[in-house]
């Protein structure tokens, strides 16, 4: 969600139970402007909130001109002071999957994971390996994970220029109402994974400048998105059921769209049973 006009944009996700208190809104409006200026960002997004047991993390992301690359993630506990999160490396993300339970709210807290090592004979040798995972690292990994799994944008909101840069499409005028009711009009904001696997015939109709990302239609399992119209058809809301708490909104016919995550930072692995 763009930090400019945050106090207006946050109202679009209010019906999903995402509300900022007036104090938080006021604080964010001040501190995000400073963050944008000091970090020399092209834009700053209010990413959302990760609920901890004792305290919550507010997350913001600053981006350069190319919005897919050069992304930096910041966290704050009071909406005023922002700390830079370390970029999530592959090893970090593998490790943080082992951490169980809710976030505590203390970035220096360490989760412990004990693993019984099996010897080569296959019998338990009794050797235990303990891995400690810092909450700050886990936070960074979970944010990266959410971005990869569910961060979405409307189709043609971003274009790929011939030199490979990904820019916001200035002439994006929004999806029409009938378009916005289809999952194929929304795309994962990440490097395409399923696109390469498509056949030439399927690729023939794609516009290279626009269709350079995966659409939601191919998501597994089917039904992992809940698409609803609110205010009649005046506002379309997509809620991810894989990461409960991720909400995307778009006002059809306008260039207004955005998304936000407010949840406890745990993937809903029970999804196949719940549909």
């Amino acid at each position, binding site marked *: 969600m763009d930090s400019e006009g945050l106090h207006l944009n946050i109202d679009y996700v209010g019906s999903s139970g995402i*509300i900022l208190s007036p104090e938080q809104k006021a604080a964010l409006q001040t501190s995000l402007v400073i963050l944008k200026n000091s970090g020399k960002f092209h834009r700053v997004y209010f990413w959302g909130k990760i609920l901890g047991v004792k305290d919550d993390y507010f997350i913001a992301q600053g981006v350069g001109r190319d919005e897919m690359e050069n992304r930096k993630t910041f966290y704050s506990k009071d909406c005023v002071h922002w700390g830079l999160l370390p970029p999530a490396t592959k090893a970090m993300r593998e490790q943080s999957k082992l951490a169980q339970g809710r976030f505590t709210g203390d970035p220096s807290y360490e989760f412990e994971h004990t693993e019984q090592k099996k010897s080569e004979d296959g019998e338990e040798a009794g050797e235990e390996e303990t891995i400690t995972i810092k909450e700050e690292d886990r936070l960074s990994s979970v944010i990266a994970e959410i971005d990869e799994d569910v961060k979405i944008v409307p189709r043609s909101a971003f274009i790929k220029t011939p030199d490979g840069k990904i820019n916001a499409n200035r002439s994006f005028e929004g999806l029409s109402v009938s378009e916005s009711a289809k999952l194929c009009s929304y795309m994962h904001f990440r490097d395409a994974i399923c696109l390469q696997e498509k056949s030439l015939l399927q690729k023939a109709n794609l516009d290279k400048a626009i269709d350079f990302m995966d659409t939601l239609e191919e998501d597994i399992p089917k039904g992992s998105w809940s698409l609803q119209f609110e205010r009649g058809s005046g506002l379309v809301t997509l809620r991810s059921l894989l990461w409960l708490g991720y909400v995307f909104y778009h006002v059809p016919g306008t260039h207004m769209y955005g998304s936000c995550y407010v949840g406890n930072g745990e993937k809903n692995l029970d999804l196949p049973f719940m549909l």
Partner: protein
Amino acid sequence: MTDVNMELNINPKEQQFISAKSYLLTASTDTGLNLYDHLSRVLTKVLDERPNNVVDIFEDVSKDSKRSKFTSDVDTVRDKLDQSTEVALAKVQEKLFAKEGGEDNEPEESEELETPLPNIMELCFFFEQAGIGLNREEMIRVWLALKNLVDTHALSHVRFWGKMFGTEQNYYIAEVEYRDGDEEEEEEEEPEEQQEEEATDKDGDEEGEEEQEEDDTPKPDFKPPPEIPKEENKTGTNKKTYFVCNDPGKPWTKLPAVTPAQIQSARLIKKFFTGRLDAPVVSYPPFPGNEINYLRAQIARISAGTHVSPMGFYQFEEDEEEEEETEGRNDCVINVDFEPVSLRDLCDGSLQHWVHHVQHILPQGRCVWVKVGQETPEEVDDEDEEEEREEPDEPEPEVGPPLLTPLSEDAEIGNLPPWTPKVSSKLIPQYAISVLQSNLWPGAHAFAAGKKFENVYIGYGHKYNMDNYNPPQTAPIQEEFPSGPEITEAEDPTVEEENALRNAQQEAAEAAEEMEEAEEEEDDEDN
């Protein structure tokens, strides 16, 4: 050529210009357009509108102007009705804003009447301080919808219970209590139940008929375990009545009373709501009922788990104390002399100053334990069955924590505290309110400020679990009929065996003949 140009006094530069222009003016063989007109139109548009950084979007401007050639400005259908869903919903919600009756005398009268309608905007204000709840406009709509509910039903108490998200639509839930005298609405409900009972009776009859027709069909000797009777209206899990609607302004639907069986199986499953009350709940173990029943069961569970109030706000009725000491008291009333609990106490980590004011649901699915076996003697038909049933030991009554138990007694989830207390503002703590967030039911919140408190639930209606959901194992495969000699088929004898048997028979016959002959001989001898 040159001669002509010489005649017209055109120098070579102008000549080049003319040939370029005539080239630009060449109409396309496909579309009939020419570049000259198109460029002039685009440039006029750019100069009129003057967008920033026009060079970046020049292609789009050009495309737009080409596209505009194909759309007609003239609307052939003048009085076209726009029946988009947006208009449809607005028309539904317009009724909410309609004032009832005349405008002159109404306000004075309504001021005198005491209305059960809560001041939702005030509560919304407090929740907003804590960053919980819904939009203000949405709350106003909910408020108006609740007002509708109060106007059409005889209610003594109304609350906005919360919002549940579904995959297709959402539920807004209102919690109500009927006025003591006016039980009409509850009577309305009973015929439905009777119908249901009739339906089940009919099924039973049909089965009976079938049995009469075909006496041969084996009867299963499985008897379903006796059904636990559901709690009466106004007690236990059915103490309050709930209404739901998909959008404020749409009609409210009353939820049926919850049965213990529904609560028990709701604990075992985890399903998303769809938003359609009549949708089937496809799950294992099978859920007895539709989504309307599942929703009601989850509401009962969430209410029992998360409805909390500051200590002292509710108290037990004094005269009942002696009578019901053994059973535990089931009802509490508002304490008139309630002294507000201080903020520091409310936000204390031990949570001693918050209490549950809704009864705990026992594993049986009821708030008050009931012994099942003997409660339903009518259902037992066969005398043999009765004898069998007396054999097992008397089940021990299940006991839960009594009403108004402090939250400090709540069980932990793994090593996670069940509640998180918070202060709404750290910058101005003098005017802050205390907020409680449930970790067991994510989405359930409570606030307390002075003499006011409220609970609300906004979420998907699922309990938090440290481990992932595991569906219960399927029942073991039924045992086959024990195989014995009476049902096993005898093997065919082999040729050797047949021959041996035949030989044996022949020998036996011969032997018998010999014997007979011998006997005859003997007889002859005797004679």
